[in-house]
């Protein structure tokens, strides 16, 4: 899954250091893809004291 780029509405969030011609493309944040939820680990072996 690719990260999602979310542009700032307008240019209000862009710092002054961003050149005017790219201000409209300024990205406020990058939302990273979440990893798939973990699946349960294998059940413990009989008589063991910890998970497998």
């Amino acid at each position, binding site marked *: 899954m690719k990260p999602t780029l979310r542009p700032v509405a307008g240019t209000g969030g862009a710092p002054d250091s961003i050149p005017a011609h790219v201000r409209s493309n300024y990205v406020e944040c990058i939302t990273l893809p979440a990893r798939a939820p973990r*699946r349960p680990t294998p059940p413990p072996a009989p008589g063991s004291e910890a998970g497998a």
Partner: protein
Amino acid sequence: MTAPSPTALDGSWRGWVAENVALGVPDGEIVSALRDAGHDAVTAAAEVERASAHPYLAAARRIAAEYGRAEALLDAYGQLRAADGGGVLERRRGVAPAEFFARYYHGHRPVVLQGLLDGSPAREWTFGGLRHRFGDVTVEVMTGREADPDHAWRYDAHRTPMPFGSYLDLVEAGPSNDNYMVPRNENWRRDGLAGMRDDIVPPAGIVPDDVLPEEMTLLLGPAGTVTPLHHDNMNILLCQVLGRKRVRLVPSFQRHLVYPRGGTFSHVDADAPDLSRFPDYASATVLETVLEPGEALFIPFGWWHWVRALDPAVTVSFHRFAVPGGNTYLSEPHSTGAA
């Protein structure tokens, strides 16, 4: 909800609940797995709730979150490798030492190298010839493997001394995984087998020519020997002298997909993976090859490998390379008391 009895789940299942809560497995899935294992729904739900609220688990969750970030980094690294030939086990002839070290040793990539043993007198070995030259030497063989599924973890209980000639008779008697002369037997250091060592010429420029016997190992056995999925803590150059071996490799950076057992072994049977029990293994990159006589396989440290002999086979491995320090080692983690 009624508080569960402290003995509602036994110690092993409570440890399993704690492990899965800490790892962030959704509560519903933990409860479902407990029910599938025969625990009643009320007890299962209460145990998960109780574990989730425990302050010790909050600390474990923080550690697991860091572990998850490390996994994400390894997965991203795996994506880079997959896009850069990582799905193929390269087979090369005439690789110069400079390229070997740049692309494979320091690149942490396995490779099959052809021709490295050309010129070694060992290429002329036959089982009959070895019997004639070294048959009276006492060697140590690992026996009784079939009757003990955990033989790899109980090596010392399986040490059996016998004349080398008698063992070669067993090797040629037919397929078996019951006996195998594996590296930990120290046979390679025996004075009586010095002539065998002398027949192996270290690959020039890759292994120093003053490599010591203890920096090499000898593996010898019948067709059918199986070495379960495991990894070594250093780089290995596995040289196939006689017979063929089927090898499966899984990248070191996919450790979280192979269900490690005791550090260097895996719960997964790489010959017949049980994906219902070990579903993440389905996402592992499994590279497979048949190593022919005269070929050498470079296995980077930490790379998982499973090996089956297809014929009566002799393999010699080197674990010293022409680099400062002789090799690169994977260090043990701080002791936590965990199995």
